[in-house]
């Protein structure tokens, strides 16, 4: 249900956005683009690689039924039987990891507040492997300034700056609240980090690509800000 509301809102939003753009001057959109670049600079300046998001107490955990889950496919995406995570791009050792292989790597757990661009927040416990661990194992190049995340959710994707990707709390999560990730939250593996807004945290991961340049993202291509820092 949450998904259909989001889609309807999106279609209405684009229509309204276009109508607004129609009566807006070119100057207004140039002004907003310029301020957007300025805000990204500020965002990057505020970001610190060693600042950890505070962990809320267990009493603030959100009941799972109240933790919204969005996807863009018409029906809930389920992982194909031969699912595996591909890691490629600017890496010395392009790799394919099975879920079991990822689970055998050092586990990282955190209780974190999720911030959605819509304005709500929710708390869950996440378990997974740090993305920096994957980068180390695959020998990510120093030229990789961006990381692209692709999914089997109807092409949903996003790209991140390398600094946020290597943040200690940026993980490839396979567990939520102490049990395996359910399909509505992105099983078998989703990207999860407290330093980015929800739409940057790609679910249903299939590929992680280390890149010299940024590409966009599903929401980013439609006008949401690319950096999406929290």
């Amino acid at each position: 249900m949450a998904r259909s509301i989001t889609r309807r809102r999106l279609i209405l939003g684009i229509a309204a956005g276009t109508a607004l753009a129609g009566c807006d001057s070119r100057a207004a959109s140039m002004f907003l683009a310029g301020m957007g670049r300025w805000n990204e600079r500020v965002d990057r300046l505020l970001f610190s690689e060693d600042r950890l998001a505070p962990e809320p107490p267990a009493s603030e955990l959100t009941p799972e039924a109240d933790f919204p889950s969005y996807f863009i496919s018409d029906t809930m995406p389920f992982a194909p039987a031969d699912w595996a995570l591909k890691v490629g791009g600017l890496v010395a050792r392009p790799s394919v990891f099975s879920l079991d292989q990822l689970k055998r790597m050092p586990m990282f757990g955190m209780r974190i507040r999720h911030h959605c661009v819509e304005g709500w927040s929710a708390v869950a416990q996440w378990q997974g492997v740090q993305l920096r661990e994957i980068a180390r194992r695959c020998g990510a190049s120093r030229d990789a300034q961006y990381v692209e995340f692709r999914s089997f959710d109807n092409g949903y994707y996003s790209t991140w700056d390398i600094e946020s990707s290597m943040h200690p709390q940026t993980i490839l999560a396979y567990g939520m609240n102490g049990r395996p990730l359910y399909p509505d939250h992105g099983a078998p593996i989703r990207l999860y980090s407290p330093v980015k807004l929800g739409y940057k945290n790609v679910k249903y991961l299939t590929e992680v690509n280390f890149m010299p340049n940024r590409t966009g993202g599903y929401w980013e291509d439609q006008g949401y800000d690319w950096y999406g820092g929290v």
Partner: protein
Amino acid sequence: MGSSAADNQWKGRRAQPAAIRLAHWINIPLLVIMAGSGLQILAAYPAFGPRGAQYKWYPFQNDAPPSWLRFGGWLAGARHWHFAIAWFLILNGVIYLTYMIASGEWRRRVFIPSRDTSNALAMFGYYLRIRKTPPPEDFYNGLQRLAYTSSILFAVVVVLSGLAIYKPVQLYWITAAFGGYDVARVVHLSCLVLLALFTAMHLVLVALHPRTIVTMVTGGQRG
């Protein structure tokens, strides 16, 4: 003013110096865009309180603000406007406050409890028709000072609570100071409501004393 020394301080100065007039008029489009885009952002999730435990006291839970009050078209558009114009609002505020302090203007404008409380109460009594005559007034009466000073306070808190919900991880200490993300969202909207109430009251009183508009345009006579 009681003493001649205090009188001399304002000699040759207009009632509304250019810097204050400029800051005042620039505020209007900035605040209108901030309020409209803020309500458009609120429309994406028009609820308060943690997920699964929404606050009971909030009367408009899950009701989006009316579309004629919103600006920016959709969530992404409104966010672009909100985070762009915010800088200019802050800049205007910083210039205004710097001028207030550097020029000494704050002395005749800011509510100082020891000086202004009894005057404010008397003025309130006059508005309520409990008192027949208004209390003596120098530059502003106590109630005016209280209102204008409150609006500055609301502006400072709206900026801080805005930062708290804009960067709750990188600026976690601001968010924590407000008592967390959900509380900071409530504070942010409350400041908008308070600023809107201030503006409504301000417009009524300006309508009752139209000369103040002329003063706010021309600066008024030199003292």
